[in-house]
């Protein structure tokens, strides 16, 4: 089974470890590929970043994370230049914009710093239509403690219930800021089960769904692609 971690922040982004350290640790843990995520501030086309790595033996993908609606607009305009577009949720408006935009691949932590879960049945339907995956971010649980952790996990479980009901794609990531926060695929898969996914769904959240996202992302980068389900055939 090929496993992917599609949300890792290296040192050139907000993270603390170099891409080399992250790649080495991810390979050791048994991943087949990872996505190095950056913010819009340091925007560079992915080919410039990727050129320094050997991507033949280990899948390295470059993603950009939008935290505001204006960032999202800019990144949607440059969608063909990178692999994965992630939206960091939390604000209701950005959560809604993320699931309404077909160019977005992943909605990350819609429950971030909220009392409610930040995700409802209407957003779930939109996410399903636009194939925007909902992310389970392990770092959110790792970096919180006691009552905060229990609240976060409760909201994540609620979002997973909606995702299951409306068949929204789900992915599990470590959300690591350093190579030390990368987690074994077994651990990520178990975390999904704890949040209410079945073992099969949980395994798919680290293998099949990320693989599908990468495949669709390659289609989105092609010049023939216009929107979800529509492309130019010559």
């Amino acid at each position, binding site marked *: 089974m090929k496993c992917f971690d599609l949300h890792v922040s290296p040192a050139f982004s907000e993270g603390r470890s170099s891409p080399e350290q992250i790649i080495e640790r991810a390979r050791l843990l048994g991943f087949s590929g990872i996505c190095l995520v950056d913010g819009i501030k340091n925007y560079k086309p992915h080919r410039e970043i990727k050129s320094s790595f050997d991507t033949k033996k280990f899948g390295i993908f470059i993603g950009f994370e939008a935290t505001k609606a204006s960032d999202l607009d800019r990144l949607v305009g440059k969608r063909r230049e990178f692999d994965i577009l992630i939206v960091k949720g939390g604000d209701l408006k950005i959560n809604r914009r993320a699931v309404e935009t077909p160019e977005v691949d992943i909605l990350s932590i819609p429950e971030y710093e909220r009392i409610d879960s930040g995700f409802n049945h209407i957003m779930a339907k939109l996410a399903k239509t636009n194939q925007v995956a909902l992310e389970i971010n392990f770092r959110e*649980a790792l970096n919180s403690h006691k009552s905060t952790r229990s609240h976060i996990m409760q909201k994540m479980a609620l979002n997973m219930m909606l995702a299951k009901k409306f068949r929204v794609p789900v992915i599990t990531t470590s959300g690591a800021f350093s190579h030390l926060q990368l987690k074994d695929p077994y*651990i990520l898969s178990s975390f999904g089960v704890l949040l209410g996914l079945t073992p099969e769904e949980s395994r798919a959240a680290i293998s099949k769904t990320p693989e599908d996202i990468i495949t669709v992302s390659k289609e989105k980068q092609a010049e023939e692609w216009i929107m979800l389900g529509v492309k130019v055939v010559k």
Partner: protein
Amino acid sequence: MKGLKNLPLSLRERKRYIAFKIIPEEGEDFTYSDLQAGIWNTLLDFLGEYGVSRTSFWLMKDCWDEGQKMGILRCNHKSIDVVLTSLGMIDRLGDNRITFKILNITGTINSIKKKNYCSFKG
């Protein structure tokens, strides 16, 4: 007086053995007692006393390989996911930063020993 008679197979708890390896940061080291304290404290924090009692968790001291930093822990078959998630919550042992790598999960200890994940052959 003889000890308790063994339970029939159908009534025994179904166990799972988890072989793990700990990857420490370069130049940092930890002892077995750090590992024991780290795992038990995290489990008790994350699951609570009642929760841990339901997992039948046990860290097998005889199977700890100090050189390769590999070990085996045991739990029941229903608790694998909570135990693995709890292990994921550990990022330090004492003052040392570490990462857990899960090597294998099996139903018998012999199958782990056959794969040489354990130096103890007793």
